[in-house]
């Protein structure tokens, strides 16, 4: 057992591990927060000190241990930067940067929010979750008071006391027989002891979106285990029942997040962020129109057949993210593109066949002239933008994939490569599939789009060429190497 150790007196002016204690800014149930300074650190700092005296909730200690392990290993704009961590041998603490402003909790008085504002907030939280999941962490306490925003707009997730790190020991897993968390936001599988499914965070975000757009919590405020367990079989009232003007695309997104079975939710936070960024592209299923909850027959079946028990083998977080990528295929509809587009289809088909949770974004760039004034209509009076959308859908139709996995986008831009790169960055695309222009004259005049995309993209890029035809022999240059020019 830990030996008796001498603790520091925590009071203004005291010094702990080189940090000078300022005022106490928060006195919470699990921890106290102090404003601290250190000469060599210019940004405002907070020291979080757990309550660990006799009789305190052991969850405060274990939660703090988890935070102490996880916080120093996280990076990026969506987490508070951690400057130091002290353990229980002396004075347990973590020192993090101050995130200015209030948590989303401050917005509760003004609910419901306008749909558009809720969409933007939800999208930012989904992006933050995506970043966190990629760092092998499931937050497990997504709720308004855990979410703040940087001045540039990025959501910051705070409080990692209930989190799970897929590559570190989970001290909460065996410590407590009852699930720890915030009852209204807790995913159903958490009630069955699951702590390793990143889609639990998507459920909590769904609760938040529902609450922020209707003003009502989908599963109420029950704190009892019995009350919480109802969500294992009882679905919430569809938002449209509460607000007749509720947009179908938003109900589709929210109810998909709130699916009881994790497998019916979005496979990744990136895919959820994608839908929130493109509401006009959300595939509307029966969910979007629903006006009442599931019939009692369905509810009873779930409850008494136990067919909603999401027992599953332990999923590797990284493997799950890798199996659900966003794949963007860039298509050109110019002359000579038929063969290339066929080759692109074969490549895309292979990717989709191996990754049943992947989603496909089909892109086409509608080139704008640098100097000329563009018209929306072509010579025959057809709307060019709409024509391209139709062509993209037509190209994708042989895939016969679920509509919810497919979106089409016409990007209007002067520079095609830049437009594709920008789309990929903004939408967290994992893999770009693009054709290499075959006409060497055109390529030499215009430069290679695929080369620029391959060189500058932050994700993987596959450059596709149509099956090679035998090269015409040039008798004057018979020894020349094949024209395998890198794109």
């Amino acid at each position: 057992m830990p030996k008796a150790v001498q603790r520091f007196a925590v009071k203004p002016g005291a010094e702990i591990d080189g940090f000078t204690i300022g005022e106490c800014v928060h006195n919470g149930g699990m921890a106290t927060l102090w404003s601290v300074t250190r000469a060599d650190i210019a940004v405002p700092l907070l020291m979080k000190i757990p309550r660990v005296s006799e009789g305190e909730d052991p969850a405060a200690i274990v939660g703090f241990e988890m935070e102490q392990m996880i916080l120093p290993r996280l990076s990026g704009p969506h987490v508070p930067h951690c400057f130091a961590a002290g353990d229980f041998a002396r004075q347990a603490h973590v020192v993090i940067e101050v995130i200015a402003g209030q948590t989303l909790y401050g917005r509760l008085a003004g609910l419901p929010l306008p749909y558009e504002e809720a969409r933007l907030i939800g999208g930012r939280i989904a992006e933050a979750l995506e970043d966190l999941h990629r760092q092998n962490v499931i937050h497990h306490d997504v709720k308004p008071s855990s979410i703040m925003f940087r001045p540039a707009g990025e959501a910051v997730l705070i409080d990692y006391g209930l989190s799970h790190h897929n590559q570190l020991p989970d001290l909460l897993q065996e410590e407590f027989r009852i699930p720890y968390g915030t009852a209204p936001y807790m995913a159903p599988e958490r009630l069955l002891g699951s702590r390793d499914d990143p889609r639990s965070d998507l459920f909590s975000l769904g609760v938040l979106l529902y609450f922020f757009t209707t003003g009502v919590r989908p599963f109420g405020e029950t704190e009892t285990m019995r009350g919480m367990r109802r969500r294992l079989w009882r679905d919430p009232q569809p938002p449209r029942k509460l607000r007749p003007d509720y947009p179908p695309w938003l109900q589709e997104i929210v109810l998909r997040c709130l699916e009881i079975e994790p497998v019916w939710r979005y496979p990744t936070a990136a895919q959820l962020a994608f839908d929130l960024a493109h509401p006009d592209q959300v595939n509307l299923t029966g969910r979007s129109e629903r006006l009442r909850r599931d019939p009692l027959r369905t509810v009873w079946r779930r409850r008494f057949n136990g067919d909603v028990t999401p027992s599953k083998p332990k999923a590797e977080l990284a493997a799950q993210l890798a199996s659900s990528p966003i794949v963007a295929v860039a298509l050109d509809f110019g002359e000579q593109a038929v063969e290339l587009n066929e080759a692109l289809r074969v490549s895309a088909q292979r990717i989709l066949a191996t990754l049943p949770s992947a989603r496909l974004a089909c892109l086409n760039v509608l080139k704008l002239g640098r100097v000329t004034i563009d018209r929306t209509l072509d010579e025959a009076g057809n709307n060019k933008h709409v024509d391209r959308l139709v062509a993209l859908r037509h190209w994708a139709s042989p895939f016969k994939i679920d509509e919810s996995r497919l979106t089409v986008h016409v990007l209007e831009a002067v520079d095609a490569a830049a437009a594709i790169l920008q789309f990929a960055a903004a939408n967290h695309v994992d893999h770009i599939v693009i054709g290499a222009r075959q006409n060497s004259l055109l390529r030499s005049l215009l430069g290679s789009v695929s080369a620029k995309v391959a060189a500058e993209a932050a994700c993987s890029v596959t450059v596709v060429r149509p099956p090679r035809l035998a090269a015409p022999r040039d008798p004057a240059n018979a020894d020349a190497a094949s024209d395998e020019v890198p794109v």
Partner: protein
Amino acid sequence: MRLAVFTDIHANRQAFSACLDFARAHGAERMICLGDYVGYGADPEWTVETVMGLVADGGVAVRGNHDHAVGEIAETMSAEAQAAIEWTRGRLNPSQRRFLADLPLTLTEEDRLYVHSEASQPSKWRYVQSTSDAGRSMLATGADITLCGHIHRPGLYSMSATAKMSSFVPIAGVTVPLLRGRRWLAVLGSVGQPRDGDPAASFAMVETASREITYCRVPYDVAAAAKRIHDNGLPPWLADRLWVGK
């Protein structure tokens, strides 16, 4: 200080060489050997000599059940293990046998305990396969960190101040902080005969100042180790299992 900790080397020269090279290249300053230097593999002389050399250079070693069996007629071993031990006994010279017989069963250094099997009854050679096995061992020692082997499968257990246990299968290459205020028991995987389905040699590095452990996996020349077993007429299954890590 950065420690490299090896266990269950089992006379596998190729695997042990690869691990030692890896450890030195990654800044290991001191070598800790947790037993079972012989048995199963075909290079017991080289392995024992190497461990003797590490100890002479300031490292430490404790005794495992196979090392113990070299000097005893063990009753609890499988037929294959017994055959390998009898073969080994004839290969080692008296000073090597003396070295193994004189090794301690446990060794404590600062807040760390080194033992081959577990701390509650080290001479009973019990396996740590569950949180209750781990808890029994942790309660039997005053050390905060126990390092052991014997089961050939990596595992990491901890006990909170309120005696609640946690268990974890460590991931190679990921550094885990051994938080103060809790007790830890690290079961290392085997250098010379992994049994967790991964044929790569397994060991761990421990950073004493920051109290962090990193489990490591090192690929080695399995074909050469297997050939040595075949060439020396040892049971063929001892070579076959190296390929699959079972």
